[in-house]
């Protein structure tokens, strides 16, 4: 029996697999049992009501999609009245993704959520490329990251996950800033700012012109960023970018991720999350690894002369 549990800061998850924010909602319960997941992560909520971006909101590209959904949000009262009670029927830890236009807004929303039973952790989405002009977001710079994470840290005692952007030139520096300001874990990363043009009409493919690229196409880029962040910060890294299979998840863990988020793959196979969990157990079995957590950071960069991987999981 493989031990699939992982520790993310003070939290113990039954397994390292959870959905990426924005690719998960109640409707998926028609297809998968949420209690099999390591955690669930809600779609980002905001205090203000948001209708989202103009259509079209999604365009597919080879190996992925560009989206500019724009975080439609029904606001906080709806979340308390409908969403929180819905998840109360499950045992799985509930991570609530939040966004706000200002550091104070982030802090206020985090404080209000911290009062609510049923919220296990907060994921601060300081990196959505679709809600600020030109894809700017707090996580683009270490200074603004520090400001918002400090405000959040003061506002909540719940585990605080901070979702970083892949669209910055110095991600390790931003990761260090988030850690120093009190983040308990870093989610690396969000979508990659992108665009596409319809050659039949000369018009942008998306109503918002620019959007965020996700899916297998971005995996090698974000994998590298997880590797960099894991070396730059001591807090756990949650890898998120193009994971569709257990092999993808294992690769992220070897690069330094403690847990992983599966997003766009769910749009292709609605039970992708479950397939990744079951596949990780098989992967560990195949490599004689008894605890999945041993994969984290087990990438070999030395010039070891033996080919076997016995050192990853030494006999007890």
């Amino acid at each position: 029996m493989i031990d699939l549990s992982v520790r993310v800061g003070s939290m113990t998850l039954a397994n390292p697999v959870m959905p990426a924010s924005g690719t998960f909602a109640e409707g998926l319960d028609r297809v998968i049992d949420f209690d099999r997941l390591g955690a669930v992560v809600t779609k980002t909520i905001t205090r203000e009501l948001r209708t989202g971006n103009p259509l079209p909101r999604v365009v597919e590209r080879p190996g992925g999609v560009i989206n500019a959904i724009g975080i439609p949000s029904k606001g906080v009262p709806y979340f308390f009245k409908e969403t929180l009670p819905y998840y109360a029927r499950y045992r799985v830890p509930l991570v609530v993704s939040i966004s706000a236009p200002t550091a104070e807004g982030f802090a206020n929303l985090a404080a209000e959520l911290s009062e609510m039973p049923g919220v296990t952790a907060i994921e601060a989405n300081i990196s959505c490329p679709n809600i600020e002009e030109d894809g700017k977001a707090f996580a683009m710079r270490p200074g603004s990251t520090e400001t918002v994470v400090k405000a959040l840290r003061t506002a909540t005692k719940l585990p605080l996950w901070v979702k970083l952007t892949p669209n910055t030139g110095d991600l390790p520096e931003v990761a260090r800033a988030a850690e120093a300001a009190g983040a308990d874990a870093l989610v690396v990363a969000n979508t990659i700012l992108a665009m596409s043009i319809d050659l039949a009409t000369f018009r942008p493919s998306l109503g918002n012109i620019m959007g965020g690229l996700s899916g297998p196409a971005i995996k090698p880029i974000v994998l590298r960023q997880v590797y960099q962040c894991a070396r730059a910060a001591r807090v756990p890294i949650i890898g998120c970018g193009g994971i569709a299979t257990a092999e993808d998840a294992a690769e992220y863990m070897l690069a330094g991720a403690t847990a992983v988020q599966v997003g766009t793959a769910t749009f292709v196979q609605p039970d992708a999350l479950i397939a990744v969990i079951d596949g990780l157990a098989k992967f560990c079995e195949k490599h004689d690894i008894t605890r999945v957590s041993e994969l984290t950071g087990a990438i070999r960069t030395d010039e070891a002369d033996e080919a076997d991987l016995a050192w990853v999981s030494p006999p007890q």
Partner: protein
Amino acid sequence: MRSDGPNKTADSLDPGGKSPGSLWKASAAAQLADVIANTAINTEYRHLIVRCGGPAMQAVPGQFFQLLCPQPAGEQPYLRRPMSLYGVDPNAGTVEFLYKIAGAGTRGLATLQVGDRLDIMGPLGVGFTLDPAWKNIVAVGRGAGLATLAPLAVAARQRNIAMTAIFSARKPDLVLSVELFEAQNARVMPVTDLEGTSGPAHVELLLRGLIADGRCDAFFTCGSSRLLRVQQRLALEFGLPGQVALEQQMACGLGVCYCCVRDFNIGGEIVHRRVCWDGPVFDLLEAIP
């Protein structure tokens, strides 16, 4: 086989099992279905029949499936493609679709051979509802919209509701499924662009005639904004109910991603609704053409 994403394998038909002690049960699934037939029925449309059993057999008229289309040469459709239900036969274990080759996804579907397998996810969305008090309904469809209305003809007959179907197409040889509707005792009235009979004014005349004859307790429509407007006007004038099946580009199909929202008029307020989750069948008067 697709190369860029997770593929179903024969042993992953089970939707992942459940947690210990869980009461959860799947009500939709991505299933591998065997292709029984995939034939051209005219120059533009093809008829696909697959066999799969499972949750797919619970599909009702107006619902849809998300098809993981094979990749045609030189193209890489990444997302699934929504396709409305054309027919379901629980005894035979079959699900049917009628599609027009229009893009990378449907070009991929056209490559399917008998014996191939197709990954279908469903049934999804909210279908049509038939009020037992209705004795006569009118279905108005254009193009592929007729495919969506076809299973409604079967459901209406089962409930002893008479259907009159106005079929609109560019030319007579593109009018679909007349035999299928007639086999359900539906009265079919084809109108075409070529014959100059498909314009809103002429269709309105036909509909007014049906209303006057007491043959229209409710409208059902799919496939034309212009004809939707005509029916909305008549529904208001005569106080008749109606339902419309709408299309929209989709990503997840399960109400998760908010890709497929449209504007609706709910009691005078314009609000977004997800076509995949709140629909694809909506109240006739709430839809905005």
